[in-house]
């Protein structure tokens, strides 16, 4: 089977879960014998593959930005232009006979649609997040929604990363549910480090990820657990606002903003943190939660986070309920048996989430459209 997969990011270049996903899915599909060409924009890093049947093909000179929904107007203009240019270049670059074209999110949809129309090759589309998620359900941009809907309508088959996302696709985009398969993400486990009293937020600092709720909870924890430190790892357009929020709350001595971390630093911080908090306003899956849990770090996640549909050994809160979030953070720091049990049971359950399983289910989807 020959598959052309059109992506946007791939380690070592990484803005979010999409890179992690593409890394896992391409490698495991290759191990299952799929001949896979992975297309992505050219970056400053060089991306290589050590598997003979997995080719990483970098396209053009497109400069890409670290997140997919810039708020800065000038940056946004350049960004959309870059996305368009990349999609155009892809159409010219993807040559030869493929059994399936597989795209991810709106960033690569245009190319997928054009290629399908040009060559008649079946199109599979994975939805990692929708415009509704990225806007935190506040002011979704119709321009993105239209692109997404067109892609969803024209795809032969859609993979949603959770039942939550499947519902959004059905209800908000009017897509036939029979066309959508749910395949949850997986994780390559991260080693556990020597735990410190660190409460971690890690993700893009955008409205979607809800870091402001993390800071509010931190403010409530501070007096009860004076030794706790709060780490906000990642960057994004909300960073300045979050920094001033921390100042206003009087917790700037407890909070560390790390900015963008390297892959190695990310693994390290997962390993040494005692609690991971994922207070996303909207979270189609939440691959970072699996990463944290795999490193033995008990996780408090938004009730709606996609991964928690299929995962038992984590704590759940409403993202806006910062009292309960603080209650759970303090409990995890204070009650060792709770921490120990969640850490152990979480790691045990995480073993069920392998990329090979994701590959098997994805192959099932491919076979259904060929």
């Amino acid at each position, binding site marked *: 089977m020959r598959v052309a997969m059109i992506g946007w990011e791939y380690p070592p270049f990484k803005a979010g879960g999409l890179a992690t996903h593409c890394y896992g899915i391409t490698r495991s599909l290759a191990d299952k014998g799929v001949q896979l060409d992975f297309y992505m924009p050219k970056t400053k890093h060089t991306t290589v593959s050590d598997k003979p049947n997995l080719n990483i093909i970098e396209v053009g000179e497109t400069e890409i930005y670290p997140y997919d929904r810039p708020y800065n107007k000038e940056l946004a203009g350049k960004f959309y232009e870059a996305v368009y240019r990349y999609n155009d270049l892809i159409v010219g670059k993807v040559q030869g006979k493929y059994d399936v074209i597989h795209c991810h999110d709106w960033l690569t949809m245009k190319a997928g649609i054009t290629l399908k129309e040009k060559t008649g090759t079946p199109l599979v589309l994975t939805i990692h997040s929708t415009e509704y998620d990225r806007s935190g359900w506040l002011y979704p941009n119709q321009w993105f929604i239209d692109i997404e809907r067109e892609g969803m309508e024209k795809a032969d088959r859609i993979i949603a990363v959770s039942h939550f996302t499947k519902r959004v696709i059905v209800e908000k985009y009017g897509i036939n549910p029979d066309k959508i398969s749910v395949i949850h993400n997986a994780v390559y486990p991260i080693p556990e480090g020597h735990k410190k009293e660190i409460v971690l937020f890690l993700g893009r600092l955008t409205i979607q990820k809800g870091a402001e709720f993390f800071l509010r909870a931190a403010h*409530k924890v501070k007096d*009860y657990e004076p030794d706790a430190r709060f780490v906000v790892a990642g960057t994004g357009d909300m960073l300045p606002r979050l920094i001033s929020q921390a100042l206003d709350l009087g917790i700037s001595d407890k909070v560390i903003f790390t900015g963008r971390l390297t892959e190695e630093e990310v693994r390290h911080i997962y390993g040494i943190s005692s609690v991971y908090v994922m207070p996303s306003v909207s979270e189609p899956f939440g691959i970072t939660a699996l990463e944290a849990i795999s490193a033995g770090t008990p996780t408090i996640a938004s009730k709606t986070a996609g991964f928690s549909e299929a995962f*038992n*050994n984590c*704590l*759940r809160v409403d993202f806006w309920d910062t*009292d*309960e979030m*603080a*209650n*759970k953070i*303090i*409990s995890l720091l*204070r*009650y060792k*048996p*709770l921490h*120990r*049990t*969640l850490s152990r*049971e979480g790691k045990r359950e995480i073993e069920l989430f392998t990329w090979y399983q994701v590959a098997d289910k994805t192959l099932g989807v491919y076979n259904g459209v060929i």
Partner: protein
Amino acid sequence: MTSVCLYFEVHQPIRLNRFSVFHIGNNNNTVSSYFDSQLNQEIFTKVSKKCYLPTNNLLLDLINKYDGKFRISFSLTGTFVEYCNQYIPEVIDSFKDLFKTGAVDMIEETYYHSLSSLYDELDEFEEQVKMHSRMIKKLFNYKPRIFRNTEAIYDNRIAKKVAEMGYKGIITEGTEKILQWRSPNFLYKSTNANIKVLLRNYTLSDDVGFRFSARLWPGHPLTADKYARWMAQSEGDVVNLFMDYETFGEHHWIETGIFDFLKHFPGKVFEHDHMDFVTVSEAVERYESVGEIDVPWAISWADADRDVSTWLGNDMQIACFNELKNIGRKMKEKRNKEMLDTWRRLQTSDHLYYVSTKGMEDGDVHKYFSPYDGPYDGFINYMNILQDLKQKL
């Protein structure tokens, strides 16, 4: 003769309010704020309407219909009776009506349905049994002769203590762990005490308790006729069918046909000439023990493991259990009735049951009964309350 010994556990736990770390040590909270009386009343009312009242009515009809030859036994926990007194007194009246027929026996247990039998010292256990005994005496003017510990938790030490307290029989699970090749359909004797042991026939009990409405089970649909035939084919003196009373109308809704099943059950049993019904006391009087059972490690009828791991299976459960147990002495020295009552209400085994992290099928059962979003929330809430109680000491 093969006797059917039908016994029901009637219990409702006292569910807790949401109690966060921020409430700990706050003096505005009285200990009564630990308990979610609204939720408790709601559930008790619901279950009374669906189960207790209609099932009691049906059983009374059946006892009258068969001239008292249909015989049953109950154990009512103290927390259950408190709910009756508080919310729906006619529920306890209907149990009194049943008892007056003479075809109904009452079984002893700990008032709080607690794990006090697993404490290092058995004085608290004894006190809770005496509390239950006083309650039964007051309600029914009766002194039970048969004992059944919380969820049938049993070991040699418990058997010895219960025998010393004067009981003639004790109920536990008929698990292969203690029986090996032997049948549960006989009476046994404890290896270290002079007390007869009634063993639950878990296959036949669970056919009704768990599987009655399971469509994928080969026995489905279970009719009274079929069930009576299975029993008639069983060898032994006594088939012990022990189950939650909530089986009728609550675990299995009326739509499953569970009440019709119960209605026809005694008649179908009586169609077999060699069968009759006995209460637990009658079983112990009538039949001799055929062997000894030796149980050094506690067993129970809970979950697939049939041991105490349901309540003490993970670090969180053990931490809560110890926390509660270890403040016992101080609690008693304090001589404050409300505090002591609260401490004991918190001993109800259900609080630890909600903190179980067992996976697979058992986990689903736990989820069904739990008022929490999983065991971890259950732990946090329960532990926060225990910390507050400790500070109030």
